[in-house]
């Protein structure tokens, strides 16, 4: 790794890479994603043959093997979509807050989406997938604004420590409220609990179709703000000097990230740490240029979630471990490694 001087604010190593190398990595990661997706179709509590996979992808459900492949298609698609959304959202949040620890899970955005959905289910009889998505996005946005404003009060602005503490505190607070709302309603606690544990296991093409528009808009907004995020990385003053309207850029990019998080949380329940781990890993491969980093984070996020889903199916055969639990087990050590690498002053 050619690590040079750390960037002034983010404390992340700057890595310069020629475009040829970046392109090579992009092809490699895409190939990895395809391979993992096929693996996700092949692995599960029932063993299937290659012929089953080919036939199942063609839509045939004649044998049990083919039928299980057909059942695994939507969850694989959903894992790819949700993983890409969370990876991209994490990269954008790290860019917007210039904070290496930003992640929808750490910053309490997922918890905000969860509380909004739980309140919707308990008090307003929310039942439709579209309803879940809108409520989740509103909840995510409110939580994001709240955590960011609490974390950026006082001297030094939004330092990683203040943001992480504000996020952890808000998550803890929201978790209590979720329990308080859900507990008196024994009739719906089953729905809430299964949604909260969530994961991609219960995916259907119907729910994917519902969430797709939100994800597409979120992707577009995030990817289009890549150039502005590059300027933002130089610091607010320099970005303004380069002609960026800093506040507007920040708000738009954050909106894109919130759309992605909210939509992903609505279909798959709260999943933490994907948005934290993926951008850090990608920065090692392609450097800090957001125009490369953002698409890369999306693809790598998809890979991570598919891997987590497959692992969850292998580890606890014949039952499954929820993908959110696996990502937390993978992600928390990475979080700790990042914290350890930073200088105390930078925190």
């Amino acid at each position: 790794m050619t690590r040079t001087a750390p960037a002034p604010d983010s404390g992340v190593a700057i890595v310069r890479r020629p475009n040829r190398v970046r392109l090579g990595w992009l092809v490699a990661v895409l190939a990895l994603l395809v391979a993992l997706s096929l693996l996700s179709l092949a692995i599960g509590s029932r063993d299937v043959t290659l012929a089953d996979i080919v036939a199942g992808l063609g839509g045939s459900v004649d044998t049990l093997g083919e039928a299980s492949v057909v059942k695994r298609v939507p969850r694989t698609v959903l894992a790819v979509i949700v993983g890409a959304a969370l990876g991209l959202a994490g990269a954008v949040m790290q860019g917007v807050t210039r904070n290496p620890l930003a992640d929808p899970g750490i910053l309490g955005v997922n918890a905000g989406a969860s509380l909004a959905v739980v309140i919707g289910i308990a008090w307003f009889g929310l039942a439709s997938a579209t309803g879940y998505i809108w409520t989740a996005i509103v909840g995510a946005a409110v939580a994001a604004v709240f955590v960011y404003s609490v974390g950026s009060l006082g001297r030094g602005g939004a330092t990683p420590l203040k943001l992480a503490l504000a996020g952890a505190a808000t998550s803890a607070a929201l978790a209590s409220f979720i329990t308080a709302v859900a507990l008196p309603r024994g009739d719906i606690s089953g729905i809430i609990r299964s949604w909260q544990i969530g994961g991609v296991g219960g995916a259907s093409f119907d729910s994917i179709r519902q969430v797709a528009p939100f994800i597409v808009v979120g992707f577009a907004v995030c990817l289009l703000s890549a150039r502005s995020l590059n300027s933002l990385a130089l610091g607010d003053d320099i970005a303004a000097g380069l002609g960026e309207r800093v506040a507007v850029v920040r708000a738009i990019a954050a909106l894109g990230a919130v759309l992605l998080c909210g939509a992903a949380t609505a279909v798959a329940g709260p999943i933490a740490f994907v948005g934290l781990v993926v951008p850090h890993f990608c920065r090692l491969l392609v450097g800090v240029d957001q125009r490369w980093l953002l698409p890369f984070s999306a693809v790598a996020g998809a890979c991570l979630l598919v891997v987590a889903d497959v692992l969850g199916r292998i580890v606890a055969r014949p039952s499954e471990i929820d993908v959110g639990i696996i990502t937390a087990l993978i992600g928390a050590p990475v979080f700790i490694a990042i914290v350890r690498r930073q200088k105390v002053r930078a925190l």
Partner: protein
Amino acid sequence: MIRVRARSAAAAASITPVAAGSTLIDAEPRSPVRTADLVAGARSRRQGRRRVVIAILSALIVVVFAVSLMVGQTFYSPAEVVGVILGQDVAGATFTVGRLRLPRAVLAIVAGLSFGLAGVTFQTMLRNPLASPDIIGISAGASAAAAFAIVTLSLGGAAVSLFAIVSGLGVALIVYGLAYKGGAAGTRLILIGIGIAAMLESIINYILSGAGQWDLQEALRWLTGSLNGTTWAQVVPALVALAILGPLLLGRSRDLSALQLGDDTASALGVRVERTRFLVMVAAVGLIAFATAASGPIAFVAFLSGPIAARILGANGSPLIPSALVGALLVLVADLAGQYAFGTRFPVGVVTGVLGAPYLIFLIVRTNRAGGSL
């Protein structure tokens, strides 16, 4: 030296409602002997205030404890309750009060004292009000181990406590070890703790999701803490742990106050910093682990007790005992409210969680705005 002391005493006195600040300032330029007298006077007044606070808190605990024994589906008179406690056979009350309400109320006090004491210890030691065991993952560690022992291994009693304490200590050591990099920095320790806590919570979720026959109410014990269905078998280990570890921690309160001035100053004052920190941490984690094994990690009690006690007490001496008392009072009141104040019976952890959340955020806002120690 004496002059400096006097000035800080004057400052303390003018903050607290204890009058006489003006006379202190008037007296300052006079002879040193007189100043020393004044310092002694201010100190004894502060001691007095601390005693008053402790007395009032204790009285409140006794009152709420008595109320929680009397009130319920059936009301029992004080005479009947006292009779049961003295071991007499009172029709009806012997079962309801003796078997149901008494262990519950006693555990409320024991767990509250343990969480309050351990919480303020961590906050003092790490010099950060947010560094309480429930935020840096120690409660989550004890809770995950207890849930694992009970749900997955079907253990009970002492074995669960053993699991909880080993895992709580293990998590504390891991967090401390990972944060240690030529001395353990407070900020790094807190952030690493948050990461570990997130991981442990996902493990708790997994354990609970595997236990289909467990209903949400039971599961909540390991997520937010609950006193429902408390038996003496749960209370006794926590009580014993408190009786042993509590005095040990209180005996270290002077070293702890010195640590609050910073590691360098503390070692200049003759405190063996790393050793004290290790001992105190083991004792505090022990308290947390035993209490968690009995009641689950009652949300935010460890976090809230210290700041509330500091508010009441002002800068008047060691906050350890007042914080423990505040913790006990919090748990007792929250449990009483959770049982009877709402239409549904909420476990105590949900009540303390909902009460504590706004305070937590208020605290972060205030600390950030003051540009304080964060």
